[in-house]
C-alpha cells in the first residue's frame, strides 16, 4: 500500500497564551506505520501541541492536515471520526462500567448507534470488544468493574478503547506516565507491535528516554515552543543542542544504555 501523502502534516502551528508563546511555528509530518516521539523538557509546549492536534485547543495559527483533511480547529469528536485514537496522560475511562462495557461504548459510537434507545448494549459487539481486550492482554478482565483496575491495566484498557474505531493514527500523551518501569516497557512494546502489525501511525509524548529511544522511529525535540531537532534516535542523541537541554539526562541515558537497558 503506497502512501502518497503523510498521515498527518502540521504547518506553522502556533499558540500563545497572553504574552507566552507556548508553541511557535511547529511543522512536521508523520507517515503511516511510523512511530514518532515528541519530546522536550517541561514547559516546552508538548501538551499544547498535542491538544491542538486532537482538537482540545484551537490553534492560534498554522494548519493541521489529517488523512487529507484540514482539521484545524475541529472538535475532538470530529477528529476521532476521521480515524484517530487517543490516550490521555491521566487515564480517562468509565469507572462505573465493566472493562468490556468500556470498549463496547466506543464500539457503539463507532457504529453510530449513540441515539439508539432500544437495543441492549451489553449484548452489542461483545465478540469485537473481547477481541480488542485480548489484543492488549486484558481478555481475562472483561467482566471486572473498571473502577477497581490497577493503574497499569487502565492504561491497557485505554489502548483497547483507542483501537475501537480502527484508527489510522494513535495520539498518546505520555502513555507511560505514572507507571512502574517494567510496565512502561511492556506497554510501549505492545503499542509498537500493534502499530506495526496494523500500519497505524503513532505520535506520542514521553519523558522516559528509555521508552523513547527504544521505540521511536523518529524523534521531534521541542524547546520553548520551537522545534529544535528532528531525526532518528541516533541523530537526536548526538545533537549537541539536545544534549545541552537534557544536560544530565542524555549522559545518564548513555551510561545506562551501555549496561543494557532493563527489559
Amino acid at each position, binding site marked *: 500500500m503506497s502512501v502518497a501523502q503523510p498521515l498527518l502534516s502540521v504547518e506553522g502551528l502556533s499558540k500563545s497564551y497572553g504574552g507566552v508563546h507556548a508553541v511557535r511555528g511547529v511543522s512536521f509530518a508523520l507517515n503511516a506505520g511510523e512511530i514518532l516521539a515528541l519530546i522536550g523538557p517541561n514547559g516546552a509546549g508538548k501538551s499544547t501541541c498535542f491538544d491542538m492536534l486532537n482538537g482540545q485547543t484551537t490553534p492560534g495559527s498554522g494548519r493541521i492536515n489529517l488523512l487529507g483533511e484540514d482539521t484545524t480547529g475541529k472538535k475532538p469528536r470530529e477528529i*476521532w471520526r476521521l480515524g484517530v485514537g487517543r490516550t*490521555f496522560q491521566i487515564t480517562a475511562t468509565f469507572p*462505573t462500567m465493566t472493562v468490556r462495557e468500556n470498549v463496547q*461504548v466506543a464500539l457503539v459510537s463507532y457504529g453510530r448507534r449513540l441515539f439508539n*434507545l432500544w437495543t441492549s448494549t*451489553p449484548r452489542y459487539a461483545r465478540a469485537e470488544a473481547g477481541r480488542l481486550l485480548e489484543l492488549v492482554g486484558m481478555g481475562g478482565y472483561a467482566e*471486572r468493574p473498571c473502577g477497581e483496575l490497577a493503574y497499569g491495566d487502565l492504561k491497557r484498557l485505554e489502548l483497547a*478503547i483507542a483501537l475501537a474505531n480502527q484508527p489510522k493514527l494513535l495520539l498518546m500523551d505520555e502513555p507511560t506516565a505514572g507507571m512502574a518501569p*517494567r*510496565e512502561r516497557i511492556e506497554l510501549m512494546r505492545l503499542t509498537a507491535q500493534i502499530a506495526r502489525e496494523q500500519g497505524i501511525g503513532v505520535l506520542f509524548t514521553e519523558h522516559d528516554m528509555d521508552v523513547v529511544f527504544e521505540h521511536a522511529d523518529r524523534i521531534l525535540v521541542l524547546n520553548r515552543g520551537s522545534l529544535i531537532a528532528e531525526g532518528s534516535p541516533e541523530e537526536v542523541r548526538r545533537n549537541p543542542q539536545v544534549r545541552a537541554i537534557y544536560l544530565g539526562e542524555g549522559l545518564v541515558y548513555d551510561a545506562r544504555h551501555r549496561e543494557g537497558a532493563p527489559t
Partner: protein
Amino acid sequence: MAFYFVQFLTGLASAASLFLVASGLSIIFGVTRIVNFAHGAFYMLGAYVAFTLTERFSGAIGFWGGIVAAAAIVALVGVLVEMVLLRRIYHAPELFQLLATFGLTLMVEDLVVLIWGPSDLLGRRAPGFKGAVDFFGQNIPSYDLFLIGLGPLVLGLLWLLFQRTRWGVLVRAATQDRDMVAALGVNQKWLFTSVFAVGVFLAALGGALQIPRDAVHHAMDLRIIVDVFVVVVIGGLGSIIGAFVAAVLVSELNAFGILIFPKISIILVFLVMAAVLIVRPWGLFGRQEAAARRTPGLTINPWRPLTSNERLAAVAALALAAALPLIGGNYALTVGSEIAIFVIFAASLHFLMSVGGLASFGHAAYFGLGAYGVAFLAKLAGLPMILSLLLGPLLGLAGAAVFGFFAVQLSGVYFAMLTLAFAQIVWSIAFQWVAVTGGDNGILGVWPESWAASPAHFYWLSIAVAALAVAVLRIIVFSPFGFALRATRDSPLRGEAIGIDGKRIQWTAFVIAGTVAGVAGALFAYLKGSIFPDSLGISLSVDALVMVLLGGVETVSGAILGAIVYKALSIWLVSQTDLSKLVLGGIIVLIVVAFPKGIVGMLETIRQRRPPTPPKSALLTSGIETAE
C-alpha cells in the same frame, strides 16, 4: 424622565440586599465549595431576629444596633450549623450538600412560623431615614438612598478585608487551592468556619436591612434564593465583584421589566441570564471550575439488566399491586394512584440524576407543564381524555427542550441552580398569567371520563402507566443511548474522545426525563381534577429529589421504592403533624449524613458483602507511582 430615574434608583436600592446575600453565598462557595441553599433561610432569619430586636429596643441605637446584632446572632447560628452539619459533608458529592442545606431551609421555615407566627410582620422604619427626597415631583425614600450608598461601601469593605488582612490572604489562597493551604499548616476547620460565619453574616444583614422596606414573612427565603442563584450564575460563582455587578443588573432588569411586561417581568431576567450563559458559561466574572466531582459516585458497582428471576419478581410485585382494589377502599386507591404517579415522576428524575449525573433542582416544572398541558387540552380545547393524556406531556417535552438546552451547557451546582431558576420562572408564569392559567385559583374540573372515573379503574390506569414508564426508562438505561449518557457522566473527556457529543446526549436525556415527568403530571391533573401553580413549585421538585435519594442514587431503579416509601410517609405525616416541613427537613438531613446510599443502595451493599478479592494486574503486578 424623572420617573425613569426614580425607577433606576429603586432598582439600585434593591440591589444592595441582593448583593449582600449573593456575595455571602459566593464567599462561602469560593472556599468550601458548598452552594449553601440555606442562605435564603439565613437571610430570612436575619430579618425576623432584626424585627424582634428593633421592636424591643427603641431609638436610633436600638434600631441600628438591633440590625447589626441580628446579623451577628444569625452568624452564630451559622457557625453552629457549620460545625454540626457541614463539617460532616464537605467531602460528599455536591448534590448531597445542596440537599442537606435545603433540608435545613425546610426546617427553618417551620421553626420561623413556630416562633414568630404565620402572618406578615411590618417592621419599624429606620431612624434618620424616615422621610423621602423630592426629585422633580417624584418621591425617593431616603432609606433607598442609604441602601444605594451601602452597596458600594460593603463592596469596598470586603475588598479591604480580602486584600489587606492576613485572614483575607488565607481565604484567597484557599479559594485557589485549599489542599495546598492545608498543607502549609493553616487550620482549615477554623478557616472554613470563619468564612461561613462571614457569609452568613452578610446574608442576615441583607435580610435585616430589608425590614424598613418590606414585610417580613416566612416565604422570603425561597424568593431571595432564586434571585441570588440568578445573580451568581450571571456574575460568576465565587466572584464578589461579579455578585455586585449582577445584583445591580438583575435589580434594574426587575425595576424596568415591570414597566415593559407588568405581569411576567421575570422573563426579562431569564433572557439576560440565557444570553450571558451562552457567551460566558461561567458567568461574567467567573472562572471555569476544575473538573467537578462526579455526582453521584460513591461506588463502582457496574449496573446489569435484571435476570429472568428478578423480572418474574417484578411482574409478581406488579400483579400484587394490581390486586389492591380487591382489599382497599376508595381512599386507599386514591393514595395508591398518587403513589404510582409519583413513582413515574421520581423515576424520570432518577434517570436524569443517576444515569445522566444531572441533578435537576427544578424537575417539577415539567411535571407541572404536563399537568397544565392536559388542563388546556381537556378544558380549553375539549379533547377526549386519551388524546389529552397523550398530548399533554408534550408541553413538558417542549419546556424541557427549551430549558434543557441551556441547562446542559453547565454542570454540577450551576446546573442545579439553573434548573431551579427555570422552574421558578415557569411557576411565576403560571402564577401571574391569570388570564390563561387562572393564577392562584388554578384550572378546575379536569375530570377523567367514565371509563377511568372509578377509583379502581384510575388506579389500574396509573399503575399500568407507571409500570410502562419504569420499563421504558430501564430499557433506555441499557440501550446504547443510556451507555453514552453514562459515559458522558463518568468522563466527558473520554466520551468526547470516542466521538460522543456529550451536550446533545444530555439534552436528549433531559427531554426524555421532562417528557416522562410530563406524563406523571398529566395523570396527576386527572387524579386531582384540577391543577394549581403548586404543581410546578420548588417543594415538589425537592420531593422528587428526596425520593431519588431515599431510594438510592446509584441504583438503576431505586427511585421506585424511594417514591413509595416517601409518598406514603409524607401523606401519613401531613395527617399527623402541622410541622411536616420540620420533620421532612430533618429526614433529608439525616439521609444525607447517615444513609447516603439510600434504601436500595443499602440493600445491595448488604447483599454484596462477599469476601473481597484484591484486583491484580493483568500481566504484571502493578506499582502505582504518583503521577506528576
